[in-house]
C-alpha cells in the first residue's frame, strides 16, 4: 500500500490565527478565490480542519489518513475509500448516504457533518489538486508541515 504524505502539527508554534481554515475553505470552494468564496454568491464549503484551543495552546488537526482507517471499514456504501495511487483516505459524495458511521468511528473526530445535504463531508483530502496542501503553504508560522511517510519534513524549497 502506498503511504500518504502526512500533515504534522506543531502545537508549540500554532499562533491560533485560524488562517488554515480560511485557506482550506478557499481551496475547496468553486472559484478558489478567497473573496468570492467568502463574499460571493457561491456556497461556502466547510473547512476540513478542526481547530482546538485551550489556554495558550492551540493547534489545527485534520484527517490523519490512517493506515488502518476505521472510517473505510465502517462505510456501508464504499463512499469512503483509499486512493490507490497516493494512499489518501478520500470521500465520494455520490456514494455517500449520510449514515454518519464514519463520524462515529473516527477516533480523532476529524470528519464533519453536512447538515444541508445530510452527508458526511468536509474531510481533509490533502488538497487533491495541489502539491502542498493550502493550510501547509499558508500557515504563517510553519506550525503545519507536510512530512513524507518516514516522517521527514517536505519543504517547498
Amino acid at each position, binding site marked *: 500500500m502506498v503511504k500518504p504524505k502526512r500533515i504534522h502539527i506543531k502545537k508549540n*508554534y500554532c499562533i491560533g490565527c485560524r488562517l488554515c*481554515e*480560511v485557506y482550506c475553505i478557499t481551496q475547496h470552494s468553486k472559484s478558489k478565490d478567497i473573496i468570492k468564496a467568502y463574499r460571493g454568491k457561491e456556497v461556502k464549503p466547510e473547512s476540513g480542519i478542526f481547530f482546538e484551543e485551550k489556554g495558550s495552546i492551540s493547534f489545527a488537526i485534520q484527517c490523519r489518513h490512517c493506515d488502518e482507517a476505521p472510517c473505510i471499514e465502517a462505510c456501508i456504501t464504499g463512499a469512503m475509500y483509499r486512493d490507490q495511487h497516493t494512499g489518501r483516505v478520500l470521500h465520494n459524495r455520490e456514494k455517500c448516504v449520510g449514515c454518519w458511521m464514519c463520524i462515529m468511528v473516527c477516533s480523532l473526530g476529524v470528519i464533519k457533518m453536512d447538515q444541508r445535504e445530510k452527508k458526511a463531508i468536509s474531510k481533509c483530502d490533502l488538497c487533491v489538486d495541489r502539491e502542498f496542501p493550502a493550510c501547509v503553504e*499558508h500557515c*504563517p508560522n*510553519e506550525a503545519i508541515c507536510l512530512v513524507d511517510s518516514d516522517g521527514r519534513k517536505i519543504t517547498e524549497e
Partner: protein
Amino acid sequence: MAKPKAISEFIIERDMEKCIKCQACVRVCANDVHIWDGESGETISRDIKCVGCHFCEELCPTGALRIKRNPSETRENAHWKKGYIYGITRQANSGGIILTGMGSDRPHKNYFDCLLLNAAQVTNPSIDPLREPMELKTFIGGKQDKITVEKLDSGGWSVKEKIQGLLELEIPIMFSAMSFGSISLNACKALAEAAKVSKIYWNTGEGGMHQSLYPYADRAIVQIASGRFGVNVDYLNNAAAVEIKIGQGAKPGIGGHLPGEKVSEEISLTRMIPEGSDAISPAPHHDIYSIEDLKQLIYAIKEATGYKKPVGVKISAVNNVAPIASGIVRAGADFITIDGIRGGTGAAPVAIRDSVGIPIEIAIAVVDQRLREERIRNRISLVAAGGFRTSADVIKAIALGADAVYIGTAALISLGCHVCQKCYTGKCNWGIATQDPYLTKRLNPEIGAKRLVNLLRAWTFEIKEMLGGMGINAIESLRGNREQLRGISLNEMELKILGVKHAGEAW
C-alpha cells in the same frame, strides 16, 4: 479645563469590500485593537489602542487592513514637534517617566551617511570576489606585541609565542546582548542557532543562560552585569567569552529593570531569582568604582575560567570614551565593546535614550586613535555596537577602526520586528520582546534562525563586493584604514575627530 483626550497615533483602515470577517485580526492582536461584535456581525477596530506593529496587516489574508499614521494636524511647529506635545500631554496625565524601546529615533547627525567608501580605478585593480578568494575571518581578543616564526624540521612554520584564546568569527558581525527576559526564549534560540550555523557569536545579555541554550554555549558570549543574574561557574566555563557590561548605548549611566510579571518560572531559574520578583540591575557595579576595581573583576573571571577565554568590557559611548578604553586595556581586558547613542534597548526613558551618549562612529574613531597613539591597540579588539543598518555601515565602522560589530535591531527586524518601540510593554505581537505564552509561540525559532542566516549571508556577499571594489582581499587590510573613507557634509572638526579626509581630497 477640558482634559485633553488621548490621541491615537495610528488609524486603521479596513477595506470592507475585501474583509471576509475571518477574524484573524481579532485573534492575533495583543493590544485588543480589533474586536468582533457579534450583534452587528462586524469587526470593530479601535485606533487608540494601535501601536503600529503591523502584525494584523501582514496576517490579513485579503489585504483588507492598512495601518497608517494619524494625519490629524496637531498644531506642531519646527520647535514643538508632535512627539513633544503628545509627550507632555501624556506626562500631565500620568505624572510618570515616558518609557520607550529600541534605539533612538531622533534625527541626530548620522556619520555613517556622511562617510563614503573608496573604489579602485586604473592604478590599482579591483577584485572580483566570485572568482578570487576574499577573507572576512576575524579574531577577537588580545594579540601579541610581536610574534616569532620558527621553521620546523618538517619544512612547515610555527609561531613560537603561545597565542591566548581568541574568538574566531567567519564574518566580523556578532549578535549583540539581548537577555532572556528582554526577549523571548524562542528569539534567543533563533539567535543562538543562527550564530552556530554562521560561525559567529551570540550574546546572552545579563539574564543568564537558559538550560536549553547550553548546546549553543560554545558560540555564546556571556554577560556579567551589575545585577549579576544567572552568574555561576558553569555559565562562565561553558561560554566562548565573557563580557562585563558597564553600560548600554540606549541608557548610559542607568540600570535595568525587568518587571516581576515577566519573571516566569523559566526566567526565575535562569536568573536565579524568585519567581515574580523584579529583576533590578543597579546603575553602577557596586564593586567597580575605578579601573583598578575593574581589573580585579576581570582577573577574578580569568581565574574562574582558567585564562582560556577572552574577557571583554562593554561600555556606552560617552565623552570620555577614549581614556576609559585605554584604562580598560590596561586593566587586562581582551576586547572592548562600545555601544553608541543609537543602540537599542528593551526599555529606557525617552529623555535618556535620545539625549545621553555620543554616536558610535565618533567613538570608534577616537578610541582607535587613542589606542594607536598609546601603542596598545594590538592588545585589545574593538567591537562596535549601536544602530548598524546595512553592510555598508559595518564596513565603514571597520574602516574607522572597529574589529567587529554587534547587530541587535537589525537581527530582530529579520525576526519580524517592525520597530514599533513598544518592547517595554511586554506585548510584542511578533513574539520577540515578550514572555506571554500566547505571544512567544509566534516566533518559530526554525524560521527565525533561517532568516538570520540569510541576512548574514547577504551582508557577507555585500561586504566582499565592497572590499573587492576597493582592491582589498582581506578585511584585515581594511581595519582602521581610514584612507578608504571620505567625509561629505562634515566640518573640519568632525573630519579631524573622525580622522578622515574630505571627499575630493586625494591620498
